[in-house]
């Protein structure tokens, strides 16, 4: 995604911005909306600062500042002019002036800032949400830029298909499955550490443990490409003898039946090796309810809530023709 340089920090005025009224000159009323927004933005990586003309002590005694203190990275509360303070703030944060948004209710302060430091984006508090949606990147891990762009195109093209099978068939999905691929050990370990939702047992492995599993057992790793690009390594299955100890998929490739295609490939591989049966395990956690019926859906028998055996001679699963293997 090509776009203008993203902003990194928001620097707030206090009086009539964080609260209604002037501190030190009477009661103030906290603006709960903006306070909640600040906390939310700070948690998503936006740097928050204060630049206001007040007595520092007055500001620090407010309930607002006590509540926000842990979210604030930099403060200049004094009677110097704000452009001067802003230069210091940029220096202290070690970011460019063009990475800063300045929020002040007073037109005078915004004009002075615009005149002295035009690189800083000066806005009225009412423009805060709009500015954040345009100038920042809050998406973080959930939607890494490239993945998001690909998935977004995917979701968009899903609109033009009424039948989901048509849609999936048009995606040119290629599943690349490798067994005990040592070059992938770091990523495999990372996936076992990070994946919570589509994870049948949620057993975490260090890189050393994955290396050991590869020596003793079969560690399957899955990468998926489709017509929009390469999704990278997004699935792991670890089979110990006749037992599936780990089966997980990154949530960004869910909703396409890939989980069944991956499991089906593993089962066929085990059949080639002469196995006659396999048992899947589901270990319930607060986050993995969605996979409670995964093995049953494929056709495994349910022994109890945790164990699901399958005799290969009784396997009736029919793979959808949407996938190619490589």
């Amino acid at each position, binding site marked *: 995604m090509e776009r203008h340089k993203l902003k990194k920090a928001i620097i707030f005025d206090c009086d009539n911005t964080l609260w209604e009224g002037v501190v030190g000159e009477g009661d103030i009323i906290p603006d709960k909306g903006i306070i909640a927004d600040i906390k939310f933005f700070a948690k998503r990586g936006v740097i928050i600062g204060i630049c206001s003309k007040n007595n520092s002590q007055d500001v620090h005694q407010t309930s607002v500042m006590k509540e926000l203190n842990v979210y604030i990275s930099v403060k200049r509360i004094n009677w110097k002019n704000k452009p001067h303070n802003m230069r210091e703030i940029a220096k202290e944060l070690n970011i460019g002036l063009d990475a800063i948004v300045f929020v002040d209710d007073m037109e005078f302060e915004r004009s002075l800032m615009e005149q002295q430091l035009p690189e800083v984006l000066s806005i009225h508090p009412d423009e805060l949400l709009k500015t954040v949606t345009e100038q920042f990147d809050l998406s973080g891990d959930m939607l890494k830029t490239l993945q998001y762009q690909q998935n977004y195109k995917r*979701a968009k093209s899903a609109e033009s298909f009424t039948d989901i099978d048509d849609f999936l068939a048009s995606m040119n999905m290629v599943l690349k499955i490798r067994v005990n691929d040592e070059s992938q050990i770091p990523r495999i370990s990372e996936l076992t550490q990070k994946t919570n939702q589509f994870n049948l047992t949620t057993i975490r492995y260090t890189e050393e443990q994955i290396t050991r599993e590869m020596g003793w057992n079969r560690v399957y790793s899955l990468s998926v490409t489709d017509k929009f690009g390469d999704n990278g390594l997004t699935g792991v299955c670890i089979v110990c003898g006749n037992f599936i100890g780990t089966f997980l998929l990154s949530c960004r490739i869910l909703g396409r039946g890939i989980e069944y295609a991956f499991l089906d490939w593993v089962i066929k591989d085990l059949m080639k090796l002469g196995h006659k049966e396999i048992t899947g395990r589901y270990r319930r956690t607060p*986050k993995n309810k969605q996979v409670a019926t995964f093995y049953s859906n494929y056709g495994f028998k349910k022994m109890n809530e945790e164990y699901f055996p399958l005799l290969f001679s009784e396997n009736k699963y029919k793979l959808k023709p949407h996938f190619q293997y490589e």
Partner: protein
Amino acid sequence: MNKKIQKVMAQAFEIPEDQININSSLDTLENWDSIHHLRMIVFLEREFDIVIPDEKVGNMINYKLINSVINECINK
């Protein structure tokens, strides 16, 4: 609260409408992952007959931010 947005969010995240409020965010809704997020974007575009600019899609991660972007798009 915008009822249409509330309805779309409930649909996208597969939960009852009364569980969506102005404080709903990807921190408060358990299944707000990338897939559900994109479902919501597609549903919002259909419901309001708008095109949400790509650079804003990733930032629509709580009710207020969604509401802000939708209002921007409608008033254009």
